[in-house]
């Protein structure tokens, strides 16, 4: 399941036309709270087994469910209610459902809904059936006992009178927007399988960055340093903003206040000449700022404002164009200054431009794929001194190494989910890979993910460090790393709105397992 939070897709929403959407209804328990959630479900239109435990037992997995029911995959915007007692585990009763199919409303909203089961499930490149049963169930997110739909017709008290086309048109976009903000994802985060990697001890610098008085960082998705050790944080506060700090973490200045190309930050990188490049996945623009903070070049463009609000994109991605980016994620350069862009959440490609911004080549396309040279959410990239491009191919749970012409060289699949990577400077380059714990952590996730790997460019893994945690030095969704100095890693985190500086301690050579 990909969802629309800052780092995850929600394209799957488009698969089910409105009239085929099902909804789940339960009355709201007193005292509950709710949050909008966009989730994909396995829906079983037939009445469920009499004994709900048959499908709720923790040791029964999706494989069995798939074989015993004519399920559909549906995508719903739902409100998840959290009871006063906290998030309950799986419900013990079948969920009432009602639905609309191709032949129109089956049930009026008031005459009771048909029975069925809707279960969240994991969507992995290998598909559901390939998932180990126990693991699948373990990773299923908690389901509240009480659900109701978010704007969908016929299932909640609001919806009773609102099954009208005009209303639907109006609210679908709004509900998408709400879900985008609040969505709790169900992510197929993959545990790394590489064996025998030694731990690298480290310390974190306490209270590293000092924002201006009265201000705080927002989601700190992007961080980078320049050659003087200044730190640039491209973060999501009420508006997306770019802050500069000195090496000691003191605030220096803001760059790009109110700038046209800032809408929803995703990456910031500094090139060898100390130009600052911001990647904005809301504006679909990449901006090169000169070292003094003026706009030097832009890649991509916003939709013209006069065309009005852009509805949340649904349906297949339009063909990728040379100069149009679609929620780009990252930027890098080779030694000649050619520009490489990972693009992104809706396109699934890597683009190469020359130093003047002219299109040269792309790998992948608007379509997601899992073959070599194809991508499914290329979420970050960096270029090594040989001009090779290292792509964090996140929803494929891997990294890919491409040559300078974007021909694929190899994939790395044993380091977990490829969230982001970083290549250190200097003649001997190290590469860091982050198997970040996802947004919306599921029970057990902290045991499986969150670590960062340090490796040679030949794939020899030297060690790993870090683990999830709300408080430093824990990581709460590392989104980007700076590793100009391979012994001082600066990480930006999404869910803790924090930038940490990590001082790695020397470690005896060991491990030697290969990233592959």
């Amino acid at each position, binding site marked *: 399941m990909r969802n629309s939070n800052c780092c995850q897709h929600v394209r799957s929403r488009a698969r089910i036309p409105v009239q085929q959407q099902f909804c789940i209804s339960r009355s709201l328990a007193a005292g509950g709270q709710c949050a909008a959630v966009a989730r994909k479900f396995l829906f079983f239109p037939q009445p469920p087994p009499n004994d709900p435990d048959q499908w709720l037992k923790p040791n029964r997995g999706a494989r069995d469910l798939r074989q015993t029911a004519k399920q559909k995959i549906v995508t719903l915007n739902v409100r998840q209610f959290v009871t006063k007692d906290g998030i309950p585990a799986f419900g013990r009763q079948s969920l009432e459902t009602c639905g609309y199919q191709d032949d129109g409303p089956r049930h009026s909203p008031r005459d009771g809904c048909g029975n069925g089961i809707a279960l969240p499930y994991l969507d992995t490149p290998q598909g559901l059936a390939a998932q180990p049963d126990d693991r699948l169930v373990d990773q299923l997110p908690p389901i509240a006992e009480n659900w109701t739909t978010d704007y969908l017709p016929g299932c909640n008290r609001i919806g009773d009178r609102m099954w009208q086309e005009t209303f639907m048109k109006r609210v679908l*976009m709004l509900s998408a927007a709400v879900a985008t903000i609040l969505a709790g994802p169900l992510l197929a985060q993959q545990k790394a399988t590489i064996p025998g990697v030694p731990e690298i001890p480290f310390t974190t610098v306490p209270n590293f960055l000092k924002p201006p008085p009265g201000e705080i960082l927002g989601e700190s998705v992007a961080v980078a340093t320049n050659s003087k050790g200044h730190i640039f944080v491209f973060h999501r506060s009420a*508006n997306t903003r770019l802050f500069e700090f000195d090496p000691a973490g003191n605030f220096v*200045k*803001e760059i*790009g*206040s*109110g*700038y*046209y*190309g800032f*809408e929803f930050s995703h990456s910031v990188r500094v090139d060898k000449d100390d130009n600052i490049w911001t990647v904005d996945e809301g*504006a679909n623009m990449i901006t090169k700022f000169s070292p003094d*903070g*003026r*706009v030097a*070049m*832009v890649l991509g*463009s*916003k939709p*013209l*404002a*006069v*065309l*009005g*609000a*852009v*509805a949340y994109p649904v349906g297949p991605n339009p063909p990728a*164009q*040379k*100069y*149009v980016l679609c929620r780009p994620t990252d930027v890098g350069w080779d030694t000649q200054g050619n520009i490489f862009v990972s693009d992104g959440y809706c396109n699934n490609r890597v683009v190469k431009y020359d130093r*003047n*911004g*002219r*299109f040269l080549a792309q790998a992948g396309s608007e379509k997601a794929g899992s073959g070599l040279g194809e991508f499914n959410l290329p979420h970050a990239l960096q270029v090594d001194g040989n001009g090779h491009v290292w792509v964090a191919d996140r929803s494929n749970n891997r990294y890919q190494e491409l040559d300078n012409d974007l021909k694929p060289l190899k994939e790395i699949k044993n380091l977990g989910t490829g969230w982001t990577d970083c290549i250190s400077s200097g003649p001997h380059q190290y590469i860091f890979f982050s198997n970040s714990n996802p947004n919306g952590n599921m029970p057990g996730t902290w045991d499986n993910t969150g670590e960062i790997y340090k490796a040679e460019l030949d794939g020899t893994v030297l060690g790993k460090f870090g683990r999830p945690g709300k408080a430093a030095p824990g990581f709460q969704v590392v989104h980007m790393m700076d590793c100009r100095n391979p012994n001082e890693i600066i990480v930006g985190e999404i869910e803790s709105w924090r930038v940490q500086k990590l001082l790695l301690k020397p470690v005896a050579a060991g491990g030697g397992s290969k990233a592959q």
Partner: protein
Amino acid sequence: MSGIRGKHKSCPMRAALMILVAVSAAVAQSGAPEIKFDSVPNPLKLPANIYFGEAGGVATNSHGDVFVYTRTGHATVTIGTSRPFAHGGSRLFEFDRTGKFVREIGKDSYGFMGASQVRVDPTDNIWAVDEMTNMVMKFDPQGQRILMLLGRKAENVNVPAGGRGGRGGGTGAGQPTDLFDRPSDVAWDAAGNIFVADGMGNNARVAKFDKDGKFVKSWGRKGTGDGEFAGVHGVAVDAQGNVYVADAGNKRIQIFGNDGNFKKSLTNVGSPQAVCLTKGTNAVLYVSNSNPVDDIDRDGEIYKMHPDGTVVGKFGRAGKLPKEFGTVNAIDCRDENTLYVGEIGNLRVQKIVLH
């Protein structure tokens, strides 16, 4: 609810873009001589906390002061209101002739959302044209007071954009009124009559007002014939009162008499998105065959020509470097050999010196 208007905008816009894509490959005058030129580095110095967005318009006054009307972005639709209201998104800046920042004009104005042009009239009044509020705003030379307003901003907006109906659908003739739909430009004749290019939305016409702002007439409709338009992107008026209309979708400049009587078309300059006519009797016409925002591998050159259609030469091409152009939307040619060029794609204004 008076003044609410449907804005059936997105479809015509896309159609216009497709026409542009379809026809502009075979641009004329590839053999026109190249004019040598330079781009003055960093011609306008912005304060640290101000950035240009899409440069909708740039113009100079008689003192050489430079005005830039730019889409700085982040137009806002408020929620928690009876209807969706929109505001913001464009700003108007003034610089002196050395490029030093002087002031912001009309800060947070009700009429500033989608900058499409700024022009300065013969007595140095500043005219801002906005394609989202559908207004033409005349400021005094100091930018302190509004002297005249043409058009009216819709009270609220449709979210998402579009919707059924809307003004001027069908023929594109536009309503025969003094309201606009994505106006793109404004010009004046010697008597002070006002000509508004209207526009890039459903209307396809030129609207004429007298010097006091009284609506006189309009002409044009969607189409390809004489006096018909496909995207009215600019307008200029010569000393004799002839009206030059940048008919981008039809890849031509149409020339009309002062009351809209068709005279001739100039068809050798690609898809004109920005036009500028120098003052005086030996006027020179500059025309930008602007590249589409999503492609820098074609078009982008600016033509210098005589008003009779004779091309003197051309300069520039699409791209991101200095001396390259990213979808030029505005040209100021008060000085025949020192041009200010506003770009949509590169979020900048270049000062061009022709040799």
